């Protein structure tokens, strides 16, 4: 997995074709087609909004709670899609891997890129909501691409790890489903972090060590409201506050190494 190879023309062409194919196939035969990638997070948003904002009134005291909630959901949706599709990529392309020698990481990357494209479309919807909600943009909005990249790298790292593990242990898909459920509730997506701080500040700090929590809160800070709590706002020790960012970097390095080490044997094990 040399960098020069990742960006070689041959691999770019292949990656592009795989992503296009994936898009063509995903909504094939459905009447609304591509619209579903917009509709799904919007529907989920509608449900969660009714339950948590209208009924339980969790959004009290948060500026632009609908946009705040939608952004969280959209980012979480990307994370689930990228990791789940990435995990299945190697196994579901077993036929290809057994017959052709090509860089295996391309199919994992192609799975995550499809999710990324969906995510970018959804971000556009978030912007529409921001305008409707009258959100004021600050200079901090310029940082959003950084968090989008961090989110993508995190998703890719986990996809690499899971896809390699999934070749050997098919239980991983079930385990990952459960972990995703747990992490969803451990991440301040539907509830505000301020609620946790009220109960236990230590607990809130621990929750923020999770890169997903850090990324979502940072993204909200950058484009929705400066009143939300970020890891740097909460933890004053810079080194501790850097933990979630460092975790993402360590994870991608370790996951790439692990994937690379195991890919030689995908063809015979898959």
């Amino acid at each position: 997995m040399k960098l020069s190879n990742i960006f070689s023309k041959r691999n770019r062409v292949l990656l592009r074709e795989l992503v296009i194919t994936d898009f063509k196939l995903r909504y094939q035969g459905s009447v609304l087609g591509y619209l579903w990638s917009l509709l799904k997070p919007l529907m989920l948003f509608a449900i969660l909004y009714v339950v948590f904002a209208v009924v339980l009134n969790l959004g009290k005291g948060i500026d632009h709670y609908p946009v705040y909630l939608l952004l969280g959901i959209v980012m979480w949706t990307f994370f689930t899609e990228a990791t789940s599709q990435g995990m299945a990529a190697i196994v579901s392309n077993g036929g290809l891997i057994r017959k052709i020698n090509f860089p295996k990481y391309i199919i994992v990357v192609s799975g995550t890129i499809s999710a990324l494209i969906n995510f970018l479309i959804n971000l556009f919807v978030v912007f529409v909501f921001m305008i409707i909600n009258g959100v004021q943009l600050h200079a901090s909005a310029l940082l959003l691409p950084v968090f989008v990249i961090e989110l993508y790298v995190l998703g890719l790292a986990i996809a690499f790890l899971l896809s390699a593990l999934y070749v050997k242990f098919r239980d991983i898909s079930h385990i990952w489903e459960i972990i995703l459920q747990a992490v969803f509730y451990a991440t301040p997506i539907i509830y505000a972090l301020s609620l946790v701080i009220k109960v236990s500040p230590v607990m809130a700090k621990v929750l923020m060590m999770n890169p997903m929590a850090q990324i979502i809160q940072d993204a909200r800070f950058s484009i929705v409201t400066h009143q939300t709590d970020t890891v740097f706002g909460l933890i004053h020790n810079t080194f501790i506050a850097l933990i979630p960012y460092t975790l993402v970097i360590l994870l991608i390095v370790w996951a790439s190494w692990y994937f690379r080490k195991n890919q030689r044997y995908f063809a015979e094990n898959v």
Partner: protein
Amino acid sequence: MADLTEQPAIVVKDLYKSFRLPTEQYSGLKQVVVNIFRRNRGYTTQKVLNDVSFDIKKGEFLGIVGRNGSGKSTLLKLLAGIYVPDKGLVQVNGSLTPFIELGVGFNPELTGRENVFLNGALLGFSRDDMAEMYDEIVDFAELEKFMDQKLKNYSSGMQVRLAFSIAIRARSDILLIDEVLAVGDADFQKKCLSVFRSMKKEGRTIILVTHDMSNVEKFCDRALVISDGRLMADTTPQKASTIYARLNIDESVTDVSNNSQNRWGSGDITIKKLSIQSPEKDGSIFDFKEDIDIDIELEKSVDGLNKDFEVGLAFFNQDGVTVAGPNSSEKRFGKNDYKIRYHLPSSPLQPGDYKVTVAVIDPETDEPFDFYDRALSFHVISDQPAQGVVALENGVWQTSD
């Protein structure tokens, strides 16, 4: 750099490959946990390729034949870099098509046109490259009317035609092809043939893996016969064809098993190791008139240490007829002899299948120390057909008046 053209296209040296086959379903965590406690790793190792070595010259059209499960596809996958060898070397000089089978990566839900571009990408072609070649590809495959239909509605012959038309666009120096020509009507096969010929003219190296001998005889310059993971023969397509035909009749080629049913004797002196080969090469396939060596390695018990012995052989042909029975009675072996060789120069044995019985005999009593019935088997092959048991080399036809 000057001798770059002299370099072989592919060098394979001492290649070994084995697979771990799970004895039980092994794709769950539960099984892993269970197996840890059992101290049983839950798989058996199967040797698929065993010490295979050969070179392929640039521009050569090589056939690899073998029965199902002989290891020929594994060999091809090792050449293609899909598998990693356990031991040994695969060295490829030049670019190699990553395909080993036609139509890999075809998606039944996409149209023919979309599949052309996807398949092209797997070969390393960009959209523009493919757009340029598109008409030629469709023309060659004779599928103009079907390109906007989904591939799942194609017949298998149509799919192969399309796949073949794309695959031959690959600009690599070395092509690996696994079982292609099985599908397609006579007309299309003729087309394939002319494509192969022109590829050969361009100096490209082609490796064809098949179990259909007629294709090998039609196209190849040279053929390898693989059996039980070993390279059994590296020879002309005609000879390979004979060997392969025999393989399909006879299961065992070199059987040096320790089967007690066909073995008896006092045991004072026993046969430890047996092998048959020609002085030039290993393997149990011989040309007519080739030298044959039979090597016998002995083991002696305390009772047998100081005893003299004789060695006798009996050659049986495929009909069970004893065709020869050489015996070492004129040269008695003694206490210092452990390794015996029977050397048969320019073997007069007719083409066919043979089995050899080996016996170590006590010259005092004529009782066997070790009698090993049909311990070895081998084949003699020839380009010329042969009749009968004996080759009458000195016979002359003349008028008797």
